[in-house]
């Protein structure tokens, strides 16, 4: 998977680099790599590896193993390696035991070791050759010292101590440093390292700089012109190191442009700038990172630009040319930064890798500090060394890793998180508003469009070439807008209006239907209005009007667990009757379900319904299929269709008074009996009345001959259920639930409990989204589904204090047990509150909602005069 088949030839003046993305396996984990100046060889060093590989077009070829000798010395355990950029034969390694070794590949013997410097006490973290001097080598060690070697001599030429000059200072003190050239100072202060400590009230304390003959002074004693030249040096948040102990050096790098300058980075977050001729003190020092600074790199072209990387996951670019190091860019990576390398020929690009967690190599454009421009994901363990293959070629990157591989990455094969990043965000709001965020270039011009031709990230067709010359278009930014829907056109306001205005219970069915139809019509929802009208016609046709006027027990009936008993008032019945009826009814339900499975339109009518009571008269009426889709007509013999019929004769005996309800006209009364008595619900061959059907009533087609026949509402129940399902599937669960509640038992039995529960839950969720808490609670109350009706039974306990004695009230209501006074007195009008009572949780006083609101508009104190500052929110 690592092998990506692309090849690049880069013209570099006379020479040309060719190659492909490739890797080779090493014997051991690598700690560092370095490239020869010919860009054709790379050296890999680690604790137990030190080899030179030739970089060929297709592969790495091992060229030389520098680990020779029978027993490997600790001197060969390399923490770092560097290849001289002037001399192809000269290498230097930093050993973990503190030894610095140089290697001369020109030696004729197998052992190429040249010189050994054993001056550091601890691991040497970094070695660095001078970019133009052949003999100058610099090392930085864990022991806190940097040493400069002249390879013509046996010992180091000079030692630089990373010991912080502010050692021993207390936190919060500010070190004032001036970095101006000495000649601007008058004779008395003609020293480079003038420094003064503040606060001036305390005697100035100095670190090792006292060795210099700059005399410490208090700031107050300085002339104003000099003060303006001073800059404060802030202390590391970790506080100063104990005096005398040096901070470990993590990196040393010679400046590419300034012959005498090098930078060093420290574990305490500091960066120092040195002049190699002045080992006594650093030129300047500043805190660059929070925590260790693991690496730094000078910009190959921009004189004075230094990139530093730290454990704080940041890469910072400093402009060192100004009199105070200025942070010009800050890149935020996702893990600690172990290595940073500027990309050749790309002024703003740099590559980083991490020493923990993250195995990838990233290339960043420092002007876009959040998203890496490219990412190499080949390594399976921490990447320890990265190097651009040629100082003038931006395409080839080499890397070594703890996973024991050496890789060559081609920039064009890198994955580009920028391209993968989603440039748009889109979200539908509650009322139909749309929030839309899009990359500005996409929405700004038509040219932002890219025709689709396969995936645009596909390397063959659409991969955007990472062209180093490509001008940076500036930081990518997004435009955020909310498209607000205007009321009416598809806004959800109809839902809120409907929910609030629908009547679901408490009135006769006909009135409910009429009311809801009117609401729907007023909101321009004609189909819904029509549906309500149809329901009214079906269930309360004029002939049924008086009977259905008893229908207001829809909610009541269900809440007391007794199915619809239209023709009887519960109180008129014998106590046992209700339960008996219920029992029977449930039997009827079971049966009706089975019947409905057989045929959705099983119905026979009989005009002369009085005599056919009991269902023993065969009916032979033809009826058009209600769906209107099929032309089939059914001829049903009830006795054959329902062989279990006699079983259901019994329930009728539970209604001895049936014929004594005298006032209602025969037809309606009968029908209503049908609706109530269990055996009718099974769509059996009872006669029923059907109101004259309006010819505009398009959903069902009924032969003219049947116009004045009477159909029982149950005839339609299958159709109505289908309709409810239709509304639910269309996303209008409001209609489904509203009809379900209004019709109650008339349809409930035909819809399985699970579906009803699903509808209720969905509708309640919607109502709550719109904060229609009252409607939601009403729906919960009216629902017959146990899972739903328990929704408002939870967390209904309120713990209140008596407003007089401040003690918790018992569950006895609004009279306090202790002071025997009514606790629900309004603090404003001193009357007992009935209805909404609002009280302060702080002082327990309260009263009528309106009164308290009004009071608190004018005063912030409790109306009871207790002095509490009540808050109404």
């Amino acid at each position, binding site marked *: 998977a690592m092998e990506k088949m692309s090849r690049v030839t880069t013209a570099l003046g006379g020479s040309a680099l060719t190659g492909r993305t490739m890797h080779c396996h090493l014997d051991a984990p690598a700690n560092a790599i370095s490239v020869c100046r010919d860009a054709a060889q790379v050296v890999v060093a680690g604790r137990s590896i030190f080899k030179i590989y030739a970089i060929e077009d297709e592969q790495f070829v091992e060229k030389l193993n520098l680990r020779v000798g029978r027993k490997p010395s600790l001197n060969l355990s390399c923490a770092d390696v560097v290849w001289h950029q002037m001399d192809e034969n000269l290498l230097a390694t930093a050993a973990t035991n503190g030894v610095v070794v140089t290697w001369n590949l020109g030696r004729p013997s197998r052992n190429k070791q040249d010189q050994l410097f054993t001056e550091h006490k601890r691991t040497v973290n970094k070695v660095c050759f001078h970019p133009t001097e052949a003999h100058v080598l610099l090392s930085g060690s864990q022991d806190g010292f940097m040493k400069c070697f002249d390879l013509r001599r046996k010992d180091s030429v000079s030692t630089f101590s990373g010991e912080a000059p502010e050692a021993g200072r207390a936190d919060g003190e500010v070190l004032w440093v001036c970095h101006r050239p000495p000649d601007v100072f008058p004779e008395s202060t003609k020293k480079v390292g003038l420094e003064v400590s503040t606060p001036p009230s305390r005697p100035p304390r100095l670190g090792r700089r006292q060795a210099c003959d700059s005399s410490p002074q208090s700031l107050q004693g300085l002339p104003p012109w000099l003060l303006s030249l001073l800059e404060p040096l802030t202390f590391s948040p970790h506080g100063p190191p104990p005096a005398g102990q040096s901070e470990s050096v993590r990196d040393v790098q010679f400046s590419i442009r300034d012959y005498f300058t090098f930078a060093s980075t420290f574990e305490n977050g500091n960066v120092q700038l040195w002049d190699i001729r002045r080992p006594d003190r650093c030129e300047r020092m500043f805190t660059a990172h929070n925590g260790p600074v693991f690496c730094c790199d000078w910009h190959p072209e921009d004189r004075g630009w230094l990139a530093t990387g730290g454990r704080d*996951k940041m890469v910072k670019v400093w402009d060192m040319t100004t009199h105070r190091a200025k942070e010009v860019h800050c890149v*935020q990576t*996702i893990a600690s930064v172990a290595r940073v390398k500027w990309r050749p020929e790309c002024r703003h690009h740099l590559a980083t890798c991490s020493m923990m967690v993250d195995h990838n190599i990233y290339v960043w454009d420092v002007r876009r500090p*959040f*998203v890496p421009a490219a990412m190499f994901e080949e390594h399976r363990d921490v990447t320890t060394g990265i190097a651009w293959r040629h100082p003038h070629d931006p395409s080839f990157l080499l890397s070594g890793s703890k996973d024991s591989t050496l890789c060559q990455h081609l920039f064009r094969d890198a994955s580009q*998180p920028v391209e993968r*990043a*989603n*440039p*748009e*965000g*889109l*979200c*539908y709001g*509650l*009322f*139909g*508003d*749309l*929030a*839309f*965020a*899009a990359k500005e270039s*996409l*929405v*700004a011009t*038509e040219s932002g469009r*890219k*025709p*689709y031709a*396969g*995936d645009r*990230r*596909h390397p063959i067709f659409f991969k955007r070439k990472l062209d180093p010359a490509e001008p940076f278009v500036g*930081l*990518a*930014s*997004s435009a*955020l*807008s*909310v*498209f607000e829907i*205007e009321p009416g*056109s598809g806004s*959800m306001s109809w839902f809120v209006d409907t929910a609030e205005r629908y009547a679901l219970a408490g009135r006769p069915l006909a009135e409910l239907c009429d009311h809801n139809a009117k609401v729907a019509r007023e909101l321009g929802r*004609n*189909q*819904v209005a029509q549906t309500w009208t149809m329901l009214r016609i079906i269930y309360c046709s004029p002939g049924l009007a008086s009977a259905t006027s008893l229908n207001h027990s829809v909610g009541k009936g269900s809440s007391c667990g007794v199915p619809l008993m239209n023709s009887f008032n519960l109180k008129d019945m014998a106590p046992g009757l209700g339960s008996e009826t219920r029992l029977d009814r449930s039997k009827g339900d079971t049966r009706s379900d089975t019947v409905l499975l057989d045929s959705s339109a099983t119905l026979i009518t009989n005009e002369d319904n009085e005599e056919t009571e009991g269902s023993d008269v065969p009916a032979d009426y033809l009826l058009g299929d209600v769906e209107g889709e099929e032309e089939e007509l059914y001829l049903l013999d009830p006795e054959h269709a329902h062989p279990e019929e006699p079983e259901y004769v019994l329930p009728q005996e539970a209604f001895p008074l049936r014929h004594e309800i005298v006032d209602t006209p025969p037809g309606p009364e009968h029908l209503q009996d049908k609706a109530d008595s269990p055996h009718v619900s099974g769509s059996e061959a009872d006669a029923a009345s059907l109101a004259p059907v309006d010819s505009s009533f398009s959903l069902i087609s009924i032969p003219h001959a049947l116009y004045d026949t009477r159909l029982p509402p149950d005839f339609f129940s299958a159709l109505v259920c289908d309709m409810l399902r239709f509304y639910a*599937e*269309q*996303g*209008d669960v409001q209609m489904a639930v509203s009809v379900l509640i209004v019709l109650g038992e008339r349809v409930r039995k035909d819809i399985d409990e699970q*579906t009803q*529960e*699903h509808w209720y*839950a*969905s*509708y309640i969720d*919607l109502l709550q*989204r719109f904060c229609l808490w009252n409607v939601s609670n009403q729906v919960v109350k009216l629902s017959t589904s146990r899972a739903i009706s328990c929704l408002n039974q939870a967390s209904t306990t309120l713990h209140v204090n008596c407003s007089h004695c401040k003690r918790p009230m018992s569950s006895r209501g609004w009279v306090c047990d202790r002071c025997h006074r009514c606790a629900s007195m309004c603090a404003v009008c001193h009357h007992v509150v009935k209805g909404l009572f609002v009280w302060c949780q702080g002082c327990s006083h309260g009263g009528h909602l309106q009164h308290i609101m009004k009071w608190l508009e004018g005063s912030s104190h409790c109306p009871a005069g207790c002095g509490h500052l009540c808050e109404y929110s």
Partner: protein
Amino acid sequence: MFVARHIAADHKDLIHDVSFDFHGRRMATCSSDQSVKVWDKSESGDWHCTASWKTHSGSVWRVTWAHPEFGQVLASCSFDRTAAVWEEIVGESNDKLRGQSHWVKRTTLVDSRTSVTDVKFAPKHMGLMLATCSADGIVRIYEAPDVMNLSQWSLQHEISCKLSCSCISWNPSSSRAHSPMIAVGSDDSSPNAMAKVQIFEYSENTRKYAKAETLMTVTDPVHDIAFAPNLGRSFHILAVATKDVRIFTLKPVRKELTSSGGPTKFEIHIVAQFDNHNSQVWRVSWNITGTVLASSGDDGCVRLWKANYMDNWKCTGILKGNGSPVNGNSQQGNSNPSLGSNIPNLQNSLNGSSSGRYFFPPLDSPRAGSRWSSYAQLLPPPPLIEQSCDADTASRQYPHPRRRSLSRPLNPLPENEGV
């Protein structure tokens, strides 16, 4: 008709996600600049940034709200390989005086070894759960066993998808008939074509998620995926943003017909497929009733899709992100002077220079093959005439000059039936 309200988001890099809360009064945005911002809607309808804080050390890909029953809780996920859960702190503070609210990190989910590309809270009825997916192809499902303690999340399931994941969507259905289900999309762009949408279903028997279905027809990288709000439907609707917009319906096959114990089988139909964006589609989002789908693509446009009662999906509106109205002709890149000149007047009438107005396409007298004649079909009267769904193609055939001047605002859906 829409009015565009532009918001100065002040994110320092791309915004990758916007998300409304449960009640639609708050909005969260997240960006590559590693921050999340929370916006609150004022009485006047303006959006005010009430919080902005650095959430991650990499690009923040997604931000999502938990159900308010669990508090004001957000989850975010990032390129930095983590997902995080945030809670708004109530109480007096200096922040509050400045009109800012304070959000604290409750937990960081660090199980992924690669970029976490999506995070979604499970439907409320499942409790406080969230799912993440990552570029290494693993979907992780976490649960906070104690809903009062947002700092304890346990990793319940790890589902391997084999492909780099880009997006996930929970099936929102609360029906007992529907097992918890999650759809996963992949943006893997390797040439070997594999199905990029997988659907996993929870089995009560094994207490594990198992693959229920794979949408074999989706082989191009998928950038977003969204189940429609269920609202009592017996089936599920799934929108997929890939090289085009696709809408699938998944009808559960009755359990008794399938072998017991195994995952539910679905009858899957593709009910719509639109390439009108003519480019990569990045986002899909459903309205709350699951009847209108909004999609956005590389063309910088938002398109709205709606089905009529015959399940025939049509484009019902196009919104351009920069505030310019889109009519049929601008699709071809033609300038439209007559319509363009109308716009300033309309804007003046709105008293808002930053507002643009959007029109649904004008309803011309229905003409066979004309672009918008299909709107007539959204009204009930059958019979339904099958027509090409590709509105762009249709309009290309009719670059009728007169229609350009007909720019009277139109509500394409005179009724709200089933919206």
